[in-house]
């Protein structure tokens, strides 16, 4: 019995392979987009875990000096006092063709971790100068005059060496960056506060760890993955629902022939399970390919934005594969649940109660309208009382779902209005027929609206951000050249050298600190027109620059300003300085950390002997100064960057940051086009009985095909019109809520009608392409197919 029932159910798909293909494609694409995003997240998180576990297996506290480095003698002093500490020296340097992070450890005193374990493999060689690096880093370095072995545990962009070798490579003899503290220490030791009062103890999780810094980036990625899954599930829902409609007579016949309802329902559920497993497996392969294609750009973004060492190649992880398949099964279950429910409640003698179905359909529409209203209400509540990123995404989801659910209602109203305005019989029939067929197309149109709104919303957000970012970059990067000294003695020499050759030499000094409970950096700012004229401040106090120069307050970046809820005049506690009033905030796009700026004199008084990390130099003749620096100091190209290079680098990072978002957007729109295609192809087979009377009344098959095409374009166009305000609302939520919560900055909404026109054109091309095949089929096979309708009526 089961085989007979299954073969009858499957025969529908074998007779309708295009419909089956669309269902499987929808499921596979949804799985691919979700699992692809999860693969990217998993790969990045594995890389963070590897980076954080390199020095010690479990989180280890460290001792750091505000200046960023300290004499190696501090290590000796603490060891003599009985403290189990180990020195680490870290810095950036050019090796071969790549600029890398050199991480120097002392393997004999280091706590257990992946790095020390690597060193212990051949301790003599390691102490003799052997280094380890990720194979990708080795490839980037190319040829180098040092011995390097490949090791997957070392993060990309890092070279692990003995601390002695690191001193030589970094030119930092006798210096260390920090001390790691072993988890277990002997009892009765003199407290660190008295032994080293100037060292800051940083507990694990307290510092600017990659996992925390990048959380927002990954949450954004996950949200877009979910959106793609939603659109994919709309396809599946639509395809399963239409197949149910088509097989309604078959279900009745099977039941009339003695197949129990329970058995039929189980067979239908088994059918969906098989489809989910088949398409899910194909989707995983696609997802892997998608992730592999996107990972290099994501890796560059993460490195550029957060300095996160993510390799550019993907490894297969069974966990995300299983999670992806689980998502597909759950999604198919959700999409198919309605069909199963309807089957379970379908009266065996359905044709006897057509009014009951009509009433059920109208009731369904009312329920949908009420659900849309409820979701819109929830969005309103979240706007007023919501706080945090999760609430932000809740708002986003409520707005999108409410809008999607309202689409069929809004379209029905528009079509009813058009029907009322129609004059000729054909146009009147056209609008009435479009309205009658709306329920069967509504899911596909909802998917299309979601995809279009997401495109408009995200596109507007990115374009607004880009325009603001470019303006900001022009003002921020006004210094003609930037010079990086290799040591403090060189910094002093450079300052003296440039003092007479440049208009202004603006040193950059900073310390790491914790501000308002957040990992942060405090910078020194020399009073100069470069800053006064170009830094646009948010809510500054009067005479802000004079007061900053006088050391009467502090500027904070927008991230800190918004996250800590600061206002101009509010007091901010700075370590070693005390509470200072906030004088204003400045935009600081692309920086994940909190930041504060002190006047140079106040900074140097509070934090003496902080090394100069960089000089921003104002000059009329940049090429001459660069040449003089290269001649006088032998500075390599990597130590001097001009304004054009810096802007190009920042813009490149910006573009890469949104590359994956754009890619997901395009894929989501493609998925929606597939949904519409699937719905139109399925519907075309069911519409013959509706079209045949018109053909009999004198319309040609060509006329009917043209009307079918026009109907798809009209519905697509109306959906686009509905998507525009929803997209702008989405953009506003992204700019004013999500960005503020995720990154800490708020951007003005700008409108780009040209982009909308382009998107609209592409959307209509997609709708046209989706409707073309069913229309052509009707045109070509029309008379023969339409005649059959009447033949069967004999």
């Amino acid at each position: 019995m089961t085989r007979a029932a299954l073969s009858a159910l499957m025969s529908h798909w074998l007779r309708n392979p295009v419909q089956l293909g669309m269902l499987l494609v929808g499921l596979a694409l949804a799985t691919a987009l979700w699992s692809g995003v999860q693969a990217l997240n998993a790969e990045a998180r594995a890389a963070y875990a590897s980076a954080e576990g390199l020095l010690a297996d479990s989180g280890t506290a460290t001792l750091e000096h505000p200046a960023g480095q300290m004499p190696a003698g501090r290590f000796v002093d603490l060891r003599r006092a009985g403290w189990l500490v180990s020195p680490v020296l870290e810095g950036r340097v050019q090796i071969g063709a790549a600029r890398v992070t050199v991480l120097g450890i002392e393997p004999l005193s280091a706590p257990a971790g992946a790095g020390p374990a690597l060193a212990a493999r051949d301790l003599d060689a390691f102490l003799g100068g052997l280094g380890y690096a990720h194979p990708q880093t080795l490839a980037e370095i190319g040829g180098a005059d040092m011995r390097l072995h490949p090791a997957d545990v070392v993060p990309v962009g890092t070279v692990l060496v003995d601390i002695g070798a690191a001193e030589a490579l970094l030119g930092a003899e006798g210096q260390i960056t920090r001390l790691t503290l072993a988890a277990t220490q002997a009892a009765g030791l003199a407290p660190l506060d008295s032994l080293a009062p100037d060292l800051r103890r940083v507990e694990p999780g307290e510092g600017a760890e990659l996992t925390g810094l990048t959380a927002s980036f990954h949450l954004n990625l996950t949200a877009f993955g979910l959106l793609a899954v939603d659109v994919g599930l709309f396809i599946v829902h639509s395809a399963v629902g239409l197949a149910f409609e088509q097989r309604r007579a078959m279900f009745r016949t099977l039941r009339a022939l003695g197949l129990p309802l329970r058995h039929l329902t189980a067979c239908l559920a088994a059918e969906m399970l098989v489809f989910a497993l088949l398409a899910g497996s194909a989707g995983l392969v696609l997802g892997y390919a998608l992730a592999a294609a996107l990972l290099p750009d994501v890796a560059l973004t993460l490195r550029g934005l957060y300095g996160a060492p993510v390799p550019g190649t993907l490894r297969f992880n069974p966990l995300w594969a299983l999670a992806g398949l689980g998502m597909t099964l759950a999604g198919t279950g959700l999409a198919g649940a309605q069909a199963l429910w309807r089957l379970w409640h379908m009266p065996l003698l359905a044709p006897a109660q057509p009014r009951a179905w009509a009433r059920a359909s109208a009731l369904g529409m009312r329920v949908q309208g009420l659900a849309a209203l409820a979701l819109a209400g929830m969005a309103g509540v979240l706007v007023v009382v919501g706080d945090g990123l999760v609430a932000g995404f809740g708002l986003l989801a409520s707005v999108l779902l409410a809008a999607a659910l309202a689409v069929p209602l809004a379209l029905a109203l528009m079509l009813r209005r058009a029907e009322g305005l129609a004059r000729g019989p054909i146009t009147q029939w056209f609008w009435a027929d479009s309205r009658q067929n709306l329920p069967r197309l509504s899911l596909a149109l909802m998917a299309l609206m979601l995809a279009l709104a997401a495109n408009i919303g995200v596109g507007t957000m990115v374009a607004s951000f880009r325009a603001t970012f470019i303006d900001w970059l022009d003002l921020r990067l006004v210094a003609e050249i930037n010079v990086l000294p290799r040591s403090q003695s060189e910094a002093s020499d450079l300052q003296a050298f440039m003092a007479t050759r440049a208009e202004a030499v603006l040193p950059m000094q900073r310390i790491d600190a914790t501000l308002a409970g957040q990992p942060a950096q405090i910078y020194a700012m020399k009073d100069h027109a470069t800053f006064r004229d170009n830094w646009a401040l948010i809510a500054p106090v009067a005479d802000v620059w004079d007061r900053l120069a006088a050391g009467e307050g502090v500027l904070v970046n927008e991230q800190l300003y918004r996250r800590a809820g600061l206002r101009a005049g509010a007091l901010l506690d700075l370590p070693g300085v005390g509470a200072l009033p906030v004088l204003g905030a400045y935009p600081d796009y692309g920086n994940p950390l909190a930041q504060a700026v002190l006047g140079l004199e106040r900074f140097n008084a509070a934090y003496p002997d902080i090394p100069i990390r960089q000089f921003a130099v104002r000059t009329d003749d940049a090429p001459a100064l660069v040449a003089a620096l290269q001649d006088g100091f032998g500075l390599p190209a990597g130590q001097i960057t001009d304004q054009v290079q810096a802007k190009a680098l920042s813009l490149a990072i910006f573009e890469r940051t949104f590359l994956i978002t754009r890619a997901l957007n395009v894929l989501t729109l493609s998925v929606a086009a597939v949904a519409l295609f699937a719905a139109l192809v399925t519907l075309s087979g069911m519409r013959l009985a509706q079209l045949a009377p018109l053909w009999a009344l004198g319309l040609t098959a060509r006329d009917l095909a043209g009307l079918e095409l026009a109907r798809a374009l009209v519905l697509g166009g109306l959906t686009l019109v509905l998507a525009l305000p929803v997209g702008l609302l989405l953009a506003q939520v992204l700019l004013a809520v999500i960005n503020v919560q995720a990154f800490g900055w708020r951007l003005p909404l700008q409108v780009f009608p040209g982009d909308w026109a382009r998107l609209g054109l592409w959307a209509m091309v997609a709708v046209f392409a989706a409707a073309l095949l069913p229309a052509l089929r009707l045109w070509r096979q029309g008379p023969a197919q339409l005649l059959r309708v009447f033949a069967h009526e004999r």
Partner: protein
Amino acid sequence: MRYPAPKIGGRMHALELHDVCKGFDSLEGRVSVLESVSLRLEAGQSLALTGESGSGKSTLLHIAAGLDRADSGRVLLAGQDMSALNDTGRAALRRGHVGLIFQQFNLVPSLNVAANLALQARLAGRAEAGRIDALAQRLGLEGLMARYPEQLSGGQQQRVAIGRCLAARPALVLADEPTGNLDEATGDAVLDLMLELTRADGVALLLVTHSPRLAARCDRRAHLRAGVIGAAP
């Protein structure tokens, strides 16, 4: 669940209805469709049920098949009380003992003729290739086995429906206006076949029709008027 072929020709009645009542709710209140309907049908016997449109013929047939439930009264199919069975039990009884023939044919459009012919027999676990081939030959379908329902004429489709029903060796065939969609000549030919095959197999046949001409060809006749059964006029 597999069902043995029912014993044909025994004393047991193929179908018994005792005081069956059925009504529907409407805007005007409860409308009675069947009022205390009783009838018996023996194996190998054919009974034509006639009546005006809306007289309750199809409702009676649906109740007899277990597709619908009576409000009161008893329906015995092959000796089993249908009113005591749930949906699964009624489906099992239908699968094992009943063959249904509809005015609209109700073939599965995605299955070809061969698969449609075998469908009910396979559901009942009684598919015999020899019998299906013999039926196909008898029904003149042997050259159409690979075709799909949409490629057949109405008469051909109804012949497939008859073959599908008889291939499962039911004890009772319930036919609801089986020639209602066919022209007179084709309808006559289809009915001839149906009567011949059911008689040959000793199958009981309940034929619902509004045509007195077709009804006259059955062994017995009954007439439904406003839900009450009586002798045919």
